[in-house]
């Protein structure tokens, strides 16, 4: 998904352009709700998300509990709100780790080329031969329990594809005249990278980061499902979903609040990525048209 490859993620052409503002507004509205939930969970949640009520377990939705109660009588709505922060934080951790690893590797490989590039890229190839989930499972198990460790593992697994993307960007930017000029003035590699290459290579990285956020949210859910998620009793959407699976025969409705929250959030991040790409990359569209 570099500048030179064209892909139509949203709706190209006239129909799509008209649709952009609406999609953007939708995204912003959802982001605003997510931000409120993440920043002010206590103000919004009607109950303490961890308060148990063992006399009222698996209750159906009612005026007291809009989304019902879970298997130990906790208010599902409050946990959904409390889980927003955890789940989004999980996503950001994974993205941050992937950038922290992928960015330097990609820059070094792209900038220096030669054997450095060859070695780094074989390493990237090697990591990419594993299904990401299987590798994330292994790394998360090695890192020990806890959400931060698990999501760092996801970040590690995502980083090679980011490194590859950044490397391609660096290669493309490196050949541009102004970089050549800077080099001929014998600027140091750091200066060239930070002043000239990085700013021009960042846009696709941002587009990718939005997608990674969505991927990381799903990863959080899966790792929770496999017992590598947030520490109890804290709520995250993944842990809620995992618990809902255990009580699926008794209360199938429990899987919908966290599941829908995940789908909507991932959808919004993907749409933002699409919109950003359309905005950042008009040249590709021009070439295409």
């Amino acid at each position, binding site marked *: 998904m570099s500048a030179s490859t064209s892909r139509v993620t949203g709706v190209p052409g006239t129909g799509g352009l008209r649709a952009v503002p609406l999609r953007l507004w939708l995204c912003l509205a959802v982001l605003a709700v997510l931000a409120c939930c993440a920043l002010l969970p206590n103000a919004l949640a009607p109950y303490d998300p961890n308060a*148990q009520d063992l006399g009222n*377990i698996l209750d159906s939705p009612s005026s007291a509990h809009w989304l019902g109660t879970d298997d130990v009588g906790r208010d599902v709505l409050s946990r959904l709100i409390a889980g927003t922060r955890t789940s989004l934080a999980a996503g950001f951790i994974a993205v941050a780790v992937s950038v922290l690893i992928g960015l330097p590797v990609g820059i070094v490989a792209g900038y220096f080329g030669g054997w450095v590039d060859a070695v780094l890229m074989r390493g990237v190839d090697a990591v990419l031969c594993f299904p990401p989930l299987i590798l994330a499972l292994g790394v998360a*198990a090695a890192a020990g329990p806890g959400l931060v460790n698990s999501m760092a593992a996801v970040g590690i697994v995502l980083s090679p594809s980011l490194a590859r993307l950044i490397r391609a960007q660096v290669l493309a930017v490196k050949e541009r005249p102004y970089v050549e000029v800077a080099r001929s003035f014998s600027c140091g590699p750091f200066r060239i990278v930070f002043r000239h290459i990085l700013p021009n290579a960042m846009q696709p990285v941002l587009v990718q980061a939005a997608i990674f956020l969505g991927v990381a949210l799903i990863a959080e859910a899966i790792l929770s499902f496999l017992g590598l998620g947030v520490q*109890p009793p804290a709520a995250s959407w993944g842990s809620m979903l995992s618990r809902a*699976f*255990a009580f699926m025969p008794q209360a199938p409705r429990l899987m919908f609040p966290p599941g829908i929250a995940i789908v909507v959030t991932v959808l919004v991040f993907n749409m933002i990525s699409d919109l950003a790409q359309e905005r950042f990359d008009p040249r590709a569209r021009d070439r295409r048209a």
Partner: protein
Amino acid sequence: MVAALATACGGTAQSDGDAGKPAKGGTLRVALAAQPSSFNPVLGNSGSADFIVQYSIFDTLTEFNSETGEVDPRLAESWTFSDPTTFVMTLRAGAAFHDGSPVDAEAVVWFLNHARGPEGGGAQVDLAKVESAEATGELEVTVQLTEPFTGLPWVLSGRSGMVMSRAAYEKDPEGFAQHPVGAGPYRFVSYKKGAKIELERFEDYWNPDGIYPDAVEFTIFQEPTTILNAIKSGEQNLSFSVSPKDVAQLESDPSVNVTTGSSYLLDQIHMNRSKKPLNDPRVRRALSLALDRDVFVKAATFGLGEPGYQFFPEDSPAAAPSIAVDNAPDLDQARSLMAEAGYGDGVGLTMLTQTSEIEVRKAEVLQAQLAEIGVELDIRPTELTQAVAEMFQDQSADLFFAYGVSRADVGDTINATFGAEALYNLPHEEHPAVMEKLAEANATSDIAERNKHLQAAAEAIADESLLLPVAFNPFIAVTTSSVHGVRVDAVLKPRLDGIWIEN
């Protein structure tokens, strides 16, 4: 106590009355929640999943009767302690292995020596007190013990009594676990590891009455929820691995029969007694007093289990009647004990638990209860072997919430928990008071007197709160409505004897 058990087992009879007479035929399809750890009985190391399968392939020397707590004859017709260190057992005539060789004294002696020898795996520990075994007649085996150990007949009802065919083993020792040959009611046909085990009825079994199905198929499921679906749809017709949470729903389903009873499976908290703060018996006692076990049972086992105030359930012969009263919840006393021990302002404890949602859920209930006395539990769901390593080897956690089922011989269980060699014991040294009582129990072959010593051991455990019992889980068997004859097994190692399928 026996009465209590009988009530608990009341669910067994059910609709068998109108189902007609037991008949041979059909395939019993059993849904397992875990794969057997090995088909070589002496190498097996896990509970239920091993035994359900192994009992079908391997007959045992004795049989544990969970209603009386005593042992009944099986391959061994009778036995006696001629003195506390000499055990003489007479075998039943006419029993044979699936390969045709007879189950005689020589076969049993070979097996006992094999089981306690270097290739014996876990059985070595069970038979550690055996000094020698020899054939003193065609069907008579004499076992010499290094010290008094009257728990031996109970031990012989488990894997250390699952006589293996010597001929089959010696032909291919490495491959035995892939082609097990025993003297049980079913012979091994095939195994897809982790997926499916097929057995067929052994027509020359010495006691054909009560062995009804033509074949048994065990299917291994990863998720307990999927077992439920499989039984409801009739794909599987028997499972012992259904969770208590699903029972209420199943009981209202006419296509399914549910059998429940009490069991020795105890949800318990292991404590690291070798370091602060749990080296202080007052803190351990406070934790125990803070637990409202009735509420726990209602929440965790949906009312099907029983509160656990001591190491053995009330209907076990080793249960001490005095203990339950002492352990009624008392938050005030718990708080003052904490204050006395210097933790009046609260204390944080890390607790390992297994990763399944059901276990984590129980831990959350405990967390809420212990918060009442200022104990802040940090729950760390951890895969089992890793948790065992962290708790008992690295000692990096304070508590370990786990479940454990007593062996047929409760003395054996005490030894495995408090003995010098026991891994699951912190500090790793023998607990003198408990082990002394156990030694006394093992020195007498009189059952009533033996039980009295075992009760004294249970009291010693409770006195210092060496272990935190929480609740006994129920025994649950679920079948399709055409399957009958399931019996409650309190140690959760059920045999398939007596189960039949309506055609």
